[in-house]
């Protein structure tokens, strides 16, 4: 008995030792695991804890505003509100959605769409955007009740607005959200970037630099504290030389025709107006452009996205006679100092080159030929000069050259020459000929043929004639000093002859722009142009209706000039696509611009 009890006692002792041994085994296992976490992997977990805790929030800069020369806002920033909610925190969505739908006036379809988006959210802990671009009036009642609506948040952001919309569309341009290559270049995915016009050219000034805010966040991603803040550098405001009232006057005068108007300060090159019609509403880009709208703009045969003032080149027609005339004076061509007879045509070999006036102009000098725009005189003058002299003169006055305006991309235009390298270029690209014909020089001398220029080049040419031969860089920003790209070496008396002739166009009985510009507020000088259009038949393009075809077969209308005549201030180039006759179609636009400028100056003086 005693032995049995002893045996039991002994067995109990052994079992107790097993239990004693089990405890350090288990606790040791725990200690080892903790050691692993806190000792060996400490750095890794420390990093994860920091990542958990910290959130780097970009602070977007507010884009600089754009104003015109008189401080009128052309591009501004509006505050918009967006409503987002965190699905995880709203409980049952229907209840919250009912409240939101009532407050934000959602249609049942919109409510259903948003409900779907919430239920489908892959990360229920992340905010889902439910409504955007709201006015304060719309979100104010919601914001006041936010504490009753857990998980719902109202945040503010800014978006770009263009108060003048279509009127300034080509000059100001538009923005769009950054794309992959922009992000590679250092932009944030939520930033808007200038894509065309001034918004693009002056992007670096307007944009500013984003700041950052290092935030401590809790497990809901809600900000608990701001640890560090680098404020964004706001974009700088820029002031354009543009006068939006003049722009408006030009736009009204052009009406719904297609064309371009450029108004330039003759001394500084400041762009007072730059219009291209038709325009497009740049505000649509900011509110999320519908792809249908974009496609409609692309498909529109009038090409509203094209800035006709800088990106399109057209045959200059009779306005080019100024260049031929100046070349004649410079080279001392016999005809430039003499006269010829215009019977209404010029017999040249077996061809008959017509003057626009079939009955003929009679006796023509340089002055009267410019005033009345006699073709025959310039056929002969061009023939005497030769193509090289004419094209050199054109390049000298900045035609066929980029104006270096800060508004890329810019068209160059074409000035043909008979030089071998130039011929090679023509041969390759268009005509496949080796020889330059005399007749072509004669055609080019009156501004037809392969010749094309942009309205901006034409305005600059008018400015250079007005200011004594300074070829200026067109300035988009206000108060910029003149940037004279080069000075044309022309004898003042020769230039004066040209100026007198341009004045004659407006004042003399047979002047091509007399009726439309003689009553303008300022004494104007200028030159009209009527560019012949290669006639299209309906057979060539079935997409165009018959009435449209009739319009399309009309000539392009030009007017270029400056005013006031005695003390020039502005140079103007007006181009109306298929506008008809230069004097009657383009001239009134120039008159409207001059009148607007004059009104403005009277008002400023009275002020």
């Amino acid at each position, binding site marked *: 008995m005693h032995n049995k*009890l*002893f045996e*039991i*006692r002994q*067995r*109990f*002792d052994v*079992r*107790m030792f*097993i*239990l*004693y041994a*089990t*405890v*350090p085994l*288990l*606790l040791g*296992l*725990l*200690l080892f*695991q*903790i*050691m692993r*976490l*806190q*000792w060996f*992997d*400490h750095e*890794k*977990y*420390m990093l*994860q*804890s920091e990542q*958990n*805790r910290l959130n780097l929030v970009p602070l977007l800069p507010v884009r600089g505003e754009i104003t015109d020369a008189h401080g009128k806002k052309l591009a501004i920033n509006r505050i918009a509100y967006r409503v987002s909610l965190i699905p995880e925190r709203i409980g049952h969505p229907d209840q919250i959605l009912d409240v939101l739908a009532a407050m934000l006036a959602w249609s049942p379809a919109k409510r259903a769409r948003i409900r779907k988006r919430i239920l489908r959210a892959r*990360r229920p*802990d992340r905010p889902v955007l439910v409504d955007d671009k709201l006015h304060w009036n719309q979100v104010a009642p919601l914001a006041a009740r936010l504490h009753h609506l857990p998980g719902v948040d109202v945040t503010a952001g800014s978006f770009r607005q263009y108060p003048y919309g279509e009127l300034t569309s080509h000059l100001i341009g538009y923005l769009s959200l950054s794309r992959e290559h922009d992000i590679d270049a250092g932009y944030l995915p939520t930033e808007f970037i200038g894509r065309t016009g001034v918004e693009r050219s002056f992007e670096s000034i307007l944009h500013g630099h984003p700041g950052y805010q290092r935030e*401590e*966040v*809790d*497990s*809901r991603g809600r900000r*608990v504290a701001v640890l560090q803040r680098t404020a964004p550098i706001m974009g700088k405001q820029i002031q354009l030389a543009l006068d939006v009232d003049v722009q408006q006057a030009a736009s009204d005068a052009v009406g719904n025709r297609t064309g371009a108007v450029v108004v330039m300060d003759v001394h500084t090159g400041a762009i007072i107006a730059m219009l291209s019609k038709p325009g497009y509403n740049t505000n649509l880009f900011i509110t999320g452009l519908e792809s249908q709208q974009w496609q409609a703009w692309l498909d529109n045969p009038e090409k509203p996205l094209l800035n006709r003032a800088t990106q399109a080149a057209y045959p200059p027609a009779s306005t080019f006679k100024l260049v031929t005339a100046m070349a004649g004076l410079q080279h001392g061509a016999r005809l430039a100092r003499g006269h010829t007879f215009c019977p209404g045509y010029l017999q040249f070999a077996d061809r008959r080159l017509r003057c626009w006036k079939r009955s003929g102009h009679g006796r023509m000098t340089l002055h009267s030929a410019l005033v009345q725009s006699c073709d025959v005189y310039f056929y002969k003058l061009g023939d005497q000069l030769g193509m090289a002299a004419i094209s050199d003169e054109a390049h000298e006055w900045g035609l066929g050259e980029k104006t270096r305006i800060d508004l890329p991309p810019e068209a160059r235009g074409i000035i043909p020459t008979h030089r071998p390298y130039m011929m090679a270029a023509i041969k390759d690209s268009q005509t496949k000929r080796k020889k330059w014909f005399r007749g072509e020089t004669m055609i080019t001398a009156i501004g037809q043929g392969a010749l094309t220029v942009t309205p901006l080049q034409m305005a600059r040419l008018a400015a250079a004639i007005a200011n004594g031969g300074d070829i200026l860089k067109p300035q988009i920003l206000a108060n910029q000093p003149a940037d004279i790209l080069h000075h044309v070496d022309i004898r003042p008396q020769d230039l004066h002859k040209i100026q007198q002739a341009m004045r004659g166009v407006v004042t003399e009985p047979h002047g091509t722009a007399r009726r439309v510009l003689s009553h303008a507020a300022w004494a104007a000088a200028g030159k009209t142009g009527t560019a012949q259009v290669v006639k299209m038949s309906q057979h060539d393009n079935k997409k165009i209706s018959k009435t449209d075809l009739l319009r399309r077969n009309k000539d392009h209308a030009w007017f270029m000039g400056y005013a006031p005549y005695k003390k020039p201030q502005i140079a103007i180039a007006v181009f109306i696509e298929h506008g008809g006759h230069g004097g009657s179609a383009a001239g009134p636009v120039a008159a409207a611009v001059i009148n607007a400028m004059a009104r403005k100056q009277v008002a400023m003086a009275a002020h």
Partner: protein
Amino acid sequence: MSRILHSLDWLLLAGLLCLAALGMLVLYAAVHQGDTGLWYKQAVYWGIGMVVFLTLCLTPLRILGLACWPIYGIVLLLLMLVPLIGDVHMGARRWLDLGIANIQPSEIMKWALVFVLANWFASREARGSVEIIAPLLLAAIPAGLIVIQPDLGTTLVLLFAATAMIIAAGLPWRLLALAASAAIASLPVLWHFMHHYQKQRVLTLLDPQSDPLGAGYHVIQSTIAIGSGGLLGKGFLQGTQDRLHFLPEQHTDFIFSVLAEEGGFIAVTLLLALYALLIYRILIIGHRAHNRFGSMLCIGVAAIFTLYITVNIGMVSGLFPVVGLPLPFISYGGSALVTMLGALGLVMRVAIESRDSIPWQRPSSPLA
């Protein structure tokens, strides 16, 4: 009375008080940004628990020996009622509304089982067929009822405590080996019967990153908290994981990560040392006890504490699946604290009675 004071196990008491202090400190860190009322409530629970502790210190073990069978019977009955009329809370049917209070019969069952097993082995060893099968049934019936609630944690506690007691009661080695191999073989069967969320927890443990915001979230965040604590910790009230609410249930089951984040490895070592002291004192008291009922009681209590600590810390540190067991004396929670202090009161009573009768001499037989 002086005799009682003399025979108290002062080391156990000191360890308990240290745990109380540490627990209240950590709880403060866990709730100081939120509901600080919980801290005061916990202080009150400590008060109530100490009253229970002292009461049981002064209650002769005989009474428990007599009461254990009726207690077991009643609790088993309540446990059977749970599937029929219990309240569903968070997907599991565990609670029973008795009119005066809501109780979790499974919580009481683990202690009742320890009592009856201690009583059963008080006068016999686990060496005959009846001697082994009867306690197995005593454990298996409530375990079966609890696992279907489902409450994996409590089931584990029940089985672990019963196993420890049966081994201590002298289960033959070959039977032990057989049981162990049978248990391992039954794991796939157990897997089959596990609830989806339980399986998910096991799977998540194997690869927490597979579902970082779902089932794995708890484990990822708590391991980040522990790991980022490092050797010395981030400092009292400086834990960012805790302060920014990345930790779920940080004042209850996951409170260990608060301690590990703010106190670092030093605090963890201190805590585990205190637990070791506690468990060893309980086992030593059980070893020295003058009767087998007391010994077995202590072993059961020690087993429950050990399992709580192991499962809780193992779960928080990503060693085991997420099983809802509190960290003894540290986690917030009244009923768990009070019952654990009550259990310690019984252990202390065993110590008192062992010295009380023959304080100078070791007993020759535990079966006496």
